């Protein structure tokens, strides 16, 4: 395993540059360019806060920060799952020519998504400073831990999906459905209290998406530090996906090329 990671590290210039290239090509020839990462979640938040705060009977100011953090983090989850399942299929031309550890291609996807997450966080921080300035404090330092946590969960997850996506071409199509299902059972837009009031505590307490979101929501919404449980769940999920990815990778890494 360490030899494998050493190969990934040796190819670092390649995947780092390709990630940057993905970002560049995403905004190539667009007038607002990278600003879209900030405009898009803000626009969506404005719209959703206006409508949903009324529907859910929530305080619009607090709810807008809830929605914005949900939008930004969910975008990352979606990019890892949807993009991850296609990581190897789209890199087929490289895979067929050069012998490199395959995980560099899923890392490329996840790194791109993480960089987008970083940029979009600026919108989240800026907006919260405007509407909830009283929450600003040392606990905001915890937000910096979101990115390594996201990367550590996202990379093995995307790698797993990429292995399966190369073999089972239905996976990218099914992913949309699965993501939607996950969205509905997670407090992404819905508030935590709605789950609790409905007696669905387990959908919050055992949901890694909730715990990942808490890393930013605890400081932004309440000026509090995330709890140890939040981190335990995040890194536990990362470890679980990691072990699973290593297990699957050991068996199928070499034969992926036949399925491309």
């Amino acid at each position: 395993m360490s030899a494998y990671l050493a190969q990934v590290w040796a190819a670092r210039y390649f995947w780092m540059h390709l990630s940057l290239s993905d970002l560049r090509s995403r905004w190539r020839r667009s007038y607002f360019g990278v600003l879209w990462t900030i405009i898009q979640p803000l626009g969506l938040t404005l719209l959703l806060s206006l409508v949903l705060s009324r529907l859910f009977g929530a305080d619009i100011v607090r709810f807008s920060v809830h929605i914005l953090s949900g939008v930004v983090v969910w975008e990352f989850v979606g990019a890892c799952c949807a993009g991850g399942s296609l990581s190897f299929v789209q890199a087929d031309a490289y895979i067929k020519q050069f012998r490199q550890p395959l995980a560099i291609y899923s890392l490329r996807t996840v790194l791109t998504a993480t960089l987008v997450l970083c940029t979009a966080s600026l919108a989240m921080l800026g907006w919260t400073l405007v509407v909830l300035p009283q929450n600003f404090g040392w606990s905001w330092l915890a937000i910096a831990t979101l990115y390594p946590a996201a990367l550590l969960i996202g990379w093995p997850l995307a790698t797993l999906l990429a292995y399966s996506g190369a073999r089972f071409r239905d996976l990218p199509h099914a992913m949309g459905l699965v993501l939607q299902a996950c969205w509905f059972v997670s407090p992404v837009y819905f508030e935590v209290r709605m789950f609790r009031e409905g007696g669905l505590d387990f959908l919050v307490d055992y949901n890694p998406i909730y715990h990942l979101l808490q890393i930013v929501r605890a400081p932004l919404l309440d000026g509090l530090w995330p709890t140890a449980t939040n981190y335990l769940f995040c890194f536990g999920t990362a470890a679980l996906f990691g072990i699973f990815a290593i297990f699957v990778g050991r068996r199928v890494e070499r034969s992926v090329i036949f399925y491309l």
Partner: protein
Amino acid sequence: MNAPRIRLLNVDLHYACSAFKQRSLLAWIGERFRLGDNRTQVADIHALRNVSVDIGQGERVGLLGRNGAGKSTFLKAVAGLYPISGGNIEVHGELRALFNLGLGFEPDATGRENILYRGLLLGATPTAMRAKEDEIVAFAALGEYIDYPIKTYSAGMQVRLAFAISTTVGGDILLLDEVIGAGDATFMVRAKQRIFSLIEQSEILVLASHDVGSLSAMCARGIVLDGGRLLYDGPISSAIEEFKRVSELSGNR
């Protein structure tokens, strides 16, 4: 460090048929309701059968065989791309493989950016690639197009660029799969010179080709493959004879 060497011992290689079997629901329904007798059987392909070869330092080896004989599979197995299902492959030395040259570009990135990416994939560092950039641009003769996105390039331009990049970074062992037919006539002449100098620098050359002329010019040893089996291994002139005999046999069949 050991001297460059390639050693294959009783190598078998299967392509798993599940990789190319039609698996859609529609195909399955179609198969169910059709009469059973015209159903096609798809089985695992035994692409290399019990192949043993030992190639040492300084050898120039030509791979001969008809289409589908296993030449590309042989090269890709040596390059470590395809997993073997039996036997053993040992490779000592830095490998450089030139297959499917036109593939593997980022279509939205410019030619210059792609020089960097492909170079990095070949194991070079960003600084090293930037130092070689001008030389690659000059060799590919793309002029101002080098700053245009790759998707605006013609097929010939892409191959020229890919060739220029891939041949800048050398290695101890050079694996070539029919790459000498790249680009237009003037480029071909320069490409051939470049290949020759790359071959001179390399310790081992394995070249798969149908071009008997360039094989006998470049290689001393010839390996003939047929149906995944090693048919002949010896001096290139006899190998070419053997290859012609096999081709004629199949032509008369």
